[in-house]
C-alpha cells in the first residue's frame, strides 16, 4: 500500500493576512447589517458585498496554493506552544471555496425565501448567518487543533439562534437538541481528547503531514482518541449522535441548506479529516491499525441512515437522513486511510455540498410556492415547477453518485479507495447504499413528472415557479453540480496537494 506523504517537500509557507481577511469579511459585515436594520435592501446589500469580497479573497489564494504555497498567519500564543493560527492548505482552501461560494447562493436564496415567508427577526437572522460563515472559514483555515476547536464552538453557538429562529415550541425543542448534542459532544468528548493530545504534545498542535501525535500514543489510545474526536465533532453526524440533524429541520430552509450543505455538517467531517490527516497522520493510524472502529461506525451510519431515509415522508427529514448517510461516506473514506479514499472524502465535501444544497433549496422552493412539505403531496408537481424539479433531479443524481454529476467523481474515488485499502465489505456498503439512495430519490422525481392517475398535458402558462431570488440560486448550484463532472480539475488538484500519492 502506498503511504500518504501529504504536502510535498517543495511547499513554502508564506505569511499573509489573506486568510484572516477572508475570515473577517463576513464578521465585519455584521455592524453594517445591524446599522441598516431598518432598510432590508441595504441590509442584504451589505451581506452580498461581504460575500463577494469573501469569495474574492478566497479565490485570490488559489493560484498561490496550487503553486505549492501555504499562506500562514500567527496571531499570538493562546496557551503555551499553541497560538491562534491560520494556515491555508489544499484541503482548507477547497472547503473555503465551497463555503464562501455557497454562502452567496444561500444569501440570495434566503432573501427570496425570508421575504416570501414574511419571517420575523430578519436582521438577527442575517447577522448570525454572517457570523456562522466567519466561523466556518475559521475552521477551514485553522492552523492547529486548538484554533480549529475554537472556531468549531463558535459555529455551534452562532447557528443556535438560526436553528431556533422561529422561537416557537418546536423551534425550541429543535434548538435544544441541536445545542445539547453539539456542545455536549464537543465539551464532553472533543475537549478532553484535545487536552489529552496537548499533554502528550505540549510543544505544539499544528496540523502537519504525518500528524503531530504520531508515535506519541499507543494503539489503543490512538483508537480511543480517534473515536472521541469523531464523535466529539458531532457535526459529522455519526450515529448515534446524529439526531440533532433531523431535529434541526425546524429551522427556515436557508438555514437547513446552510447547515446541511455549507457550514455545519461539512465542518464536522472537515474536522474529522483534519484529525485523521493532520493530528494522527494516516501512516501512523495504518501502522497501529487504529481506524477500524471508525470505519465500521461510519459504515453502519451509511446503511442505517439510508434505510431510515427510505421510510420518511417529510422531504426535509428525508434529506436530513440522506445527509447523514453522505457524511458517513466522507468519514468512511478518510477512515480507509488509503490515498484515494482520503482524496475522495475531500472531493465529496465539495460535491455533496453543491448537490445537497440544490436539493434543500428545491425543498424550500416547493414549500414557498405551494406550502407542501411531504413527499406524498408532490405527485405531478414537476409539471407546475419544472425548473425546480429539474434541478432536484440533478441534485439527486449527484447525491446518488451517477454521471453526469460531480457526485460521480467523488464516489468513484471513494470506491477506488476501498479497493485500494482492500476492504471489500466496505465496498459492498458503498454499493448497497447507492442502491438505497436511488431508491429514495428516484421515485420522488419520477412521480413529480409522471404522476399516477390522469394528468393534464404540460403547459408553460400553468407553471408557477418560485420567486426569482429563490430560483436563480437553485439553477446556479444545479449547473455547478453538472459542471463539476466535466471540469473537476480544481478540486482534484487541491485534493492532490494533500494526497500526492494519487
Amino acid at each position, binding site marked *: 500500500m502506498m503511504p500518504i506523504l501529504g504536502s510535498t517537500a517543495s511547499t513554502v509557507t508564506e505569511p499573509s493576512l489573506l486568510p484572516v481577511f477572508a475570515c473577517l469579511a463576513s464578521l465585519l459585515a455584521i455592524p453594517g447589517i445591524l446599522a441598516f436594520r431598518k432598510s432590508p435592501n441595504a441590509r442584504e446589500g451589505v451581506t452580498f458585498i461581504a460575500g463577494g469580497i469573501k469569495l474574492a479573497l478566497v479565490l485570490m489564494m488559489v493560484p498561490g496554493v496550487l503553486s505549492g504555497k501555504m499562506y500562514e498567519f500567527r496571531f499570538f*500564543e493562546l496557551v*503555551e506552544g499553541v497560538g491562534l493560527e491560520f494556515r491555508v492548505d489544499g484541503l482548507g482552501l477547497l472547503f473555503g471555496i465551497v463555503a464562501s461560494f455557497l454562502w452567496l447562493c444561500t444569501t440570495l436564496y434566503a432573501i427570496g425565501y425570508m421575504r416570501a415567508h414574511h419571517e420575523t427577526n430578519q436582521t438577527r437572522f442575517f447577522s448570525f448567518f454572517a457570523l456562522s460563515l466567519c466561523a466556518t472559514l475559521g475552521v477551514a483555515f485553522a492552523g492547529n487543533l486548538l484554533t480549529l476547536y475554537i472556531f468549531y464552538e463558535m459555529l455551534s453557538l452562532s447557528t443556535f*439562534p438560526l436553528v431556533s429562529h422561529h*422561537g416557537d415550541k418546536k423551534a*425550541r425543542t429543535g434548538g435544544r437538541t441541536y445545542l445539547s448534542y453539539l*456542545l455536549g459532544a464537543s465539551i464532553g468528548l472533543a475537549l478532553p481528547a484535545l487536552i*489529552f493530545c496537548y*499533554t502528550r504534545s505540549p510543544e505544539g498542535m499544528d496540523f502537519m503531514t504525518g500528524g503531530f501525535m504520531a508515535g506519541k500514543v499507543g494503539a489503543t489510545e490512538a483508537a480511543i482518541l480517534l473515536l472521541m474526536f469523531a464523535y466529539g465533532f458531532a457535526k459529522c453526524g455519526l450515529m448515534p449522535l446524529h439526531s440533532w440533524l433531523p431535529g434541526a429541520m425546524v429551522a427556515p430552509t436557508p438555514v437547513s441548506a446552510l447547515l446541511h450543505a455549507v457550514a455545519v455538517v461539512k465542518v464536522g467531517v472537515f474536522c474529522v479529516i483534519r484529525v485523521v490527516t493532520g493530528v494522527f497522520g494516516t501512516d501512523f493510524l495504518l501502522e497501529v491499525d487504529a481506524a477500524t472502529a471508525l470505519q465500521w461506525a461510519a459504515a453502519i451510519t451509511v446503511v442505517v441512515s439510508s434505510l431510515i431515509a427510505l421510510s420518511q415522508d417529510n422531504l426535509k427529514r428525508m434529506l436530513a437522513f440522506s445527509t447523514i448517510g453522505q457524511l458517513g461516506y466522507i468519514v468512511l473514506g478518510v477512515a480507509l486511510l488509503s490515498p484515494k479514499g482520503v482524496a475522495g472524502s475531500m472531493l465529496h465535501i465539495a460535491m455533496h455540498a453543491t448537490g445537497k444544497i440544490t436539493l434543500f433549496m428545491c425543498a424550500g422552493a416547493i414549500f414557498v410556492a405551494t406550502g407542501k412539505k411531504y413527499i406524498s403531496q408532490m405527485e405531478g408537481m414537476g409539471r407546475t415547477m419544472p425548473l425546480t424539479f429539474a434541478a432536484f433531479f440533478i441534485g439527486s443524481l449527484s447525491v446518488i453518485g451517477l454521471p453526469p454529476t460531480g457526485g460521480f467523481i467523488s464516489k468513484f474515488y471513494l470506491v477506488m479507495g476501498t479497493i485500494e485499502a482492500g476492504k471489500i465489505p466496505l465496498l459492498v456498503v458503498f454499493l448497497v447504499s447507492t442502491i438505497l439512495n436511488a431508491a429514495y430519490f428516484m421515485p420522488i422525481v419520477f412521480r413529480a413528472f409522471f404522476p399516477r392517475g390522469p394528468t393534464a398535458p404540460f403547459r408553460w402558462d400553468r407553471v408557477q415557479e418560485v420567486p426569482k431570488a429563490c430560483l436563480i440560486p437553485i439553477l446556479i448550484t444545479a449547473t455547478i453540480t453538472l459542471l463539476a463532472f466535466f471540469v473537476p480539475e480544481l478540486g482534484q488538484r487541491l485534493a492532490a496537494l494533500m494526497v500526492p500519492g494519487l
Partner: protein
Amino acid sequence: MMDQMPTILMLAPFIGAVGLSLLAWRRPAAAMPVVFGALAITVLAAVLTLREVLANGTITYLLSGWDRLPERAAGMAVGIEYKIDAFNALVLVLIPAIALINALYLRTRLAVECAGKEILYAILYLLLVVGLCGMVITNDAFNLYVLLEISSLTSYALIGIGRRRAAHATFNYIMTGTIGASFFLLGVGYLYIQVGTLNIGDIHEALMASSELRELASIKVAAMMIMAGLWLKMGLFPLHGWLPNAYRYAPTATGSLMAPLVTKVMVVVMLRMMVSLFGLDYLFAELNWRPVIVGIACVAILAGSFFALAQRDIRGMLCFLIVAEVGYMVGGAWLGNEAGITGAAYHVLSDACMTFCLFLAVAAIILRTGEHRLSAFRGAFRKMPVAMAAFTVGALSMVGLPPTCGFFSKWYLLIGGVEAGQWHYVACLLISSLVNAVLFFRIFEIALMKVEVEESGSFDVDALPEDPEDRWERVPVGTIVAMIVAATAVLTIGLLNRPIASFIATWIGQAVEVAP
C-alpha cells in the same frame, strides 16, 4: 515614592473610609466621590506595584521599619512585612479594580437601597477592599487573620444592611465565618507553638529545614485547621450553606462586589498557604490528602452545578455556580501539579471577572424588569442589548467556551487533571461545563423566544411596543460602562492567559519558559 506604593495601595481606601467618618458624617453626597477617588488611587498604586514587581521581582516591604535584624533575631522577622510576588500583584490589581468598576453601579443604587446610610455603606465598602487587599499583601500569618476579620466584619455589615430577609442569612454567615476564621487562627496557633514565628516565609523555612518538625502531628493538624477554616470562608461544599442566601439577599451592589471577590480572595489565601507557607513538597510528598480533597472538590462541583440547575431565582442560580467554581479551584489547587495550581490561580482571576460580569448584568435585568426569576429574561436581548451582551460573555465563560477566560482556566485545570491522572476530576469539570451550558442556554432560550410563561401566556418578542423609551436599556450609564468593562475583562484575561500563566508559574517557583 515608588517603594511606598504597597502602603499607599493599602492606605488609600483606608484613609478614604476614615475621612468619610470624620468629615462627612451628615453629607451623603460625599460618599461616592470619596469612594471613586480612593479606589482610583488604589488601582493606580496597584498597577504601579505590579509594574515594579514585573520589572524587579518580588517586593518586600517592612512595616514599622523593623529590619530582619540578622545578628539579634537570627534573621527572623520581628515586625510585620508585606510580600508582593507576581501572583499577589495581579490579585492586588484585580480587587480594587473590581471594586472601582462596581462603584459605578453602586452609585446608582446607593441612595435607593441604603437610604440614610450612604456614608456607612461607603465606609464599609472601602474597608472591605482594605481587608481583602491586606489579606493578599501581608506576609504574616496573624496579620492575615486580623485582615480576614476586617473583611469578614465589613461583609457581614454590607450584607446585613440589606432587606429583612438578609438578617438571618447574615447571622448564619457570621456563625460560619467566625468558625472559619477561628479555625484558621487555631491552625496558626498550632504552627506557632511548634515553630515560634508568625512570618509566613520564616515558618516555611523552618518547615523545610527540619524533617522532625514536618513529622509532627500538630503541624498536620495545623494544615488541616487552616484549610478547613479557609474552606468554610470560601464556601466549599458541604460548608457552603451560608453562601447562597447571603449573596442573594444582600443589597445588589454588595452582591456584585462580594460574589466575585470574597470567595476568590479566600482561594488566593489558600494558594498562598499551600505554596508559600506549607510548601508543595510537604503537602503533596508527605501528606497524602490529594485523593480526599480532590474528591470533595468533585462533589462540590457536581453539587453546585445541580443545585444551580434546580434554582428558579437567577441570583440563587449564580450563587450555586460560585459553589461549583470553588470546587474547581480547590480541586485544581490540590491536584498538586503545576498545571493544576496555575489553573486554580488563573481561575481566581477569570472567575472573579466572569462572576462580576454576570452579577452586574443580572442586577441590571432584575432592576429593569422587577422580576428575579428566570422569566425576567423574556425578550431581554431586544430590551437590553448591552446587559445581555455582557451576560452572554459571562455565560459563555462560565460554560467554558473559547475565547473567554473561562475556557482557558478550564484548559489548565483539565491539563492538571489529566497529568495528575485524576480522571474523576476531569469528568466532573466536563459535566459541570455541560450543566452550565444547559443552565445558560435555558436562559438564552427564554430571552430569544416566544416562551409561554405560566401566568402571562404567550410572549412574542416582536409584539413588544415600539416605544423608543421602552426599547432602550433604561439602565444608568454607569452600570452600562461597568458591564462593558467587565465583559471586556473576561475576554482580555482570556486572550492574555499566556503571560498571566507564566507569572503564576514563576510564582510557583518552577522553571517555566516565559513567553517572548
